[in-house]
């Protein structure tokens, strides 16, 4: 299951070690006249976990959507795994966007499971229909993954029959079944009932330990501190600062980061 044999405790986050899996340079994006991403630079090494934090509307989701090719950036480059590199300065061809999608898989805040398909069908849709893998093999893999997240016996259920936490675990399995190089999580627990948050966070933590490369947008600072190899604070469409989670979350160097963290940690 593990996508790589690299140990999780990779080199310092600021200057990732050899083999960066994801490199983003000068990513820009506007919606109409409002500039949402100014110039985003990111590097994530193979097997590393980057946590993106920041206030609402700062552009975190937009970054993920650009990485997954769901949003067409206006400028900058995204490179995944060395082979796929898209330059948004020159209008990229559809095929390049598709290549981005092929390398990465996203887990959504609202799960976005397909409501008219069973749990199993949700998981095998991509492998069979898009990637053209044999049904038997795809089903076997899906069942292994579902078993691992404790949902094997729910394979025939429809999404509405599951709790939020169960739906989100299916969402993660659906992403894993695509065998991506890069996993993207957009606030994976913020739609969940508080008692169900743990199930999902524990699963993501396991994936991190196994060596999956991930970018996670989250407000769970405790979780980011423990699981991420690097934290980046996004505000107003720029990365205000980034660095080692334990360091940055305790002693941010920027005033904006400090204020944000304070609001989150001491709400009243």
């Amino acid at each position, binding site marked *: 299951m593990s996508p790589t044999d690299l140990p999780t405790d990779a080199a310092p986050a600021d200057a990732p070690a050899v083999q960066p899996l994801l490199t983003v340079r000068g990513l820009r994006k506007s919606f109409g006249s409002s500039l949402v991403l100014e110039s985003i630079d990111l590097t994530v090494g193979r097997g590393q976990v980057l946590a993106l934090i920041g206030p609402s509307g700062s552009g975190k989701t937009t970054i993920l959507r650009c990485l997954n090719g*769901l949003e067409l950036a206006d400028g900058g480059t995204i490179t995944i795994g060395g082979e796929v590199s898209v330059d948004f300065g020159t209008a990229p061809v559809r095929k390049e966007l598709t290549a981005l*999608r092929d390398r990465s898989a996203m887990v959504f805040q609202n799960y*976005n*499971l397909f409501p*008219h398909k069973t749990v199993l069908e949700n998981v095998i849709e*991509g492998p069979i*229909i*898009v*990637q053209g893998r044999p049904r038997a093999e795809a089903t076997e893999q899906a069942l292994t993954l579902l078993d691992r997240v404790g949902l094997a016996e729910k394979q025939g259920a429809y999404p*509405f029959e599951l709790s939020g936490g169960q739906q989100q675990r299916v969402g993660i399995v659906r992403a894993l079944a695509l065998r991506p190089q890069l996993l993207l999580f957009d606030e994976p627990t913020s739609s969940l009932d508080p008692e169900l948050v743990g199930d999902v966070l524990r699963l993501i933590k396991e994936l991190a330990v196994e060596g999956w490369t991930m970018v996670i947008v989250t407000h769970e600072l405790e979780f980011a501190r423990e699981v991420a190899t690097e934290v980046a604070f996004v505000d107003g469409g720029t990365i205000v600062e980034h660095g080692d989670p334990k360091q940055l979350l305790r002693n941010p160097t920027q005033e904006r980061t400090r204020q944000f963290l304070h609001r989150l940690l001491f709400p009243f």
Partner: protein
Amino acid sequence: MNQSTWDLFLSSLGPIIMGAVTGTIPLALVSFAVGLALALLLALMRLSRRRWLSSIARGYISIVRGTPLLVQLFVIFYGLPSLGVLIDPWPSAVIAFSINVGGYAAEVIRAAILSVPKGQWEAAYMIGMSHRRALTRIILPQAARVSVPPLSNTFISLVKDTSLASLILVTELFRQAQQVAAFSQEFMLLYLEAALVYWVICLALSSVQGLLEKRLDRYVAH
């Protein structure tokens, strides 16, 4: 209701139901099927980012919805021949009703597609689907559920509108009632009788709609 009225009622029920079975119902079914295919095409054109495509669809829908069906029937049956296009009554009726259903159902389908949450498109793209695949495998099945009630209404209207086909030589339910009325001079009774048969057909359709909704609801929370 006296005896002779009652006799007339009973004796005309046969021909009227016959008209429904051989005229009204097949005409409505075929026109609806063709119209639905047309409507899907129009809905997709309306949603297309290409301006000219969406303008064509918009114009079509506006004209079909903005003019009486009667005129549409007349133009196809009596008007086209002057352009050298001569179409038989039945195909003429099917064409006219399909065109009409297409205009109305297109808006229904378009609204249904728009009602599917954007996240469903994104999830489909995320797993690597093309636009076309996302549409057919993910969006349309969900839109189908939403559009069952309004499309049923369109169908019920169509069933009643097929009575206009009698104008262009198609023998159906209402035409049969008119014939008996012309003979017996009892047009009130016969029209009421026709109405009753239409009502029964519509009731049957409504229960089919109910079954369909239930079936499509199986994957939706209650």
